[in-house]
């Protein structure tokens, strides 16, 4: 298996579909990172193979950067009546090298009855939240949304220090003190 370096010609545009780690310039596809070339058959296009360059180690992989529609996991830093601020720690499956800031605005918390949402009854500082990137946002933060069943709080700790258990879409209970707190809970996803 050949190792390619940036700028190495991999093939013609007509032969392959350029994917991760490659770049199309004119008719040619070039490698964009150091790594090994892999080709996989495409589902939509029977004739062309998908070509990508896979960096072997984590060290060689550029830290993931959130894009629109990527699913991110982050920790709630602070809340105010208008929005919850998150520090994005994981994009898809890959951890970020550097934490990116994201906000969930009150209107993006859930899909229905948006006017009745209260941030404090949805998220609290310290919660781990799964969310979707809806826009690159302003110069400071990405805009995130939890308006889907499988998005929302996936891990929360009660004031007593125990991991809380979701009991409904909107409630979590502390196993120690049996105190019920409001959260926008995420539907567990089958691993």
């Amino acid at each position: 298996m050949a190792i390619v370096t940036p700028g190495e010609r991999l093939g013609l545009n007509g032969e392959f579909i350029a994917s991760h780690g490659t770049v199309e310039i004119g008719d040619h596809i070039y490698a964009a990172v150091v790594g090994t070339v892999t080709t996989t058959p495409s589902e939509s296009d029977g004739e062309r193979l998908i070509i990508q360059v896979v960096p072997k180690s984590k060290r060689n992989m550029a830290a993931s950067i959130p894009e629109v529609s990527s699913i991110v996991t982050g920790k709630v830093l602070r809340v105010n009546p208008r929005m919850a601020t998150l520090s994005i720690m994981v994009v898809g499956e890959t951890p970020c090298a550097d934490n990116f800031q994201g906000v969930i605005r009150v209107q993006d918390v859930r899909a229905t009855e948006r006017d009745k949402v209260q941030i404090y009854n949805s998220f609290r500082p310290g919660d781990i939240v799964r969310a979707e990137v809806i826009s690159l946002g302003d110069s400071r933060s990405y805009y995130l949304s939890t308006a889907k069943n499988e998005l929302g709080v996936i891990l929360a700790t009660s004031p007593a220090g125990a991991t809380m258990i979701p009991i409904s879409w909107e409630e979590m209970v502390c196993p120690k003190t049996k105190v019920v707190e409001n959260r926008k809970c995420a539907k567990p996803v089958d691993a």
Partner: protein
Amino acid sequence: MDSVDRKRIHGPDKSVLPLPLLDSQHESVTSKTTLNPSARFDGRTHEEVRPLFARTAMVSQANGSAYIEVGCIKIICAVYGPKQITTKSKSGDHHSGGRISCDVRLAPFAGLKRKGYMKDTNEHSLAKNLATALTPSLLLAHLPKSQIDIHIQILQATAGHVSASSTSSATVLPPPSFATNLSLLLSPCITVASLALADAGIEMMDSVVGCSVGLFRRTDKNSLFWMVDPSEEERETRALGGGVWVGNAVVGVMPSVGRISGLVVDGDVGDVGVLMEAVNVCVDACAKVHDVVVKKALVDGFHAASSPVSGSSSAV
């Protein structure tokens, strides 16, 4: 992986002429100003670069790093990021793509005399020209709202024996100021920064390789000739071929694409013909350096990262 012959450069399956610049037309142009091989102090031909050593993954904390040694020049580069842009910008162009920030520093012990920690204009313009040369190669559109920090530390900038050799030469010439020498530090800076960026896994169109060329005026005739990758000795003294230093050009080249990403020219470099001849020779030299040193350093770095055995080096 085991069957790979690491001494060979792997070409693409479907081969095309790699560089349109290597055609015979240019060869005939360059021969006009050819010197005899003995024209240089170290016996190089006029279009030969100095031996250079490069390796990647030098700084464990950084996302990517590289080290380069060319003659007496020693430079280390570390790349951090991509990370979120924290400074607020009014223009609102953060959607258009990422940006890079370059920082070039000369170590206090880099020269013959100690240099202060204060950043001077030379370091500033080095950093600016470096950023100009690197930006075209990077696919910054893929990195919205992000910044890549490139830190370069020049550990050694001059040879220790310069003054001795320049006094021994018979002619009395005003040695070019340190600023001229600094501009020639740019070419290894470009090469090492691009290596570090590739090591960090930043997506790029092509590596950028830097190369400098010194232009000299023959004292007997009023014609110019050039020497690729001039050493400090050649800058400071009259060349053996009997020429006086008149100017220099530093070129940043993307070898596979065959495009020029950075260009700084200083001095009375004569007409466009001579200058372009020199630039084209730089482009050729960069392609060679890329094939022999840069690629190997990257492939070695890749192997080192995937196996516990470390240590990777390369030299022309």
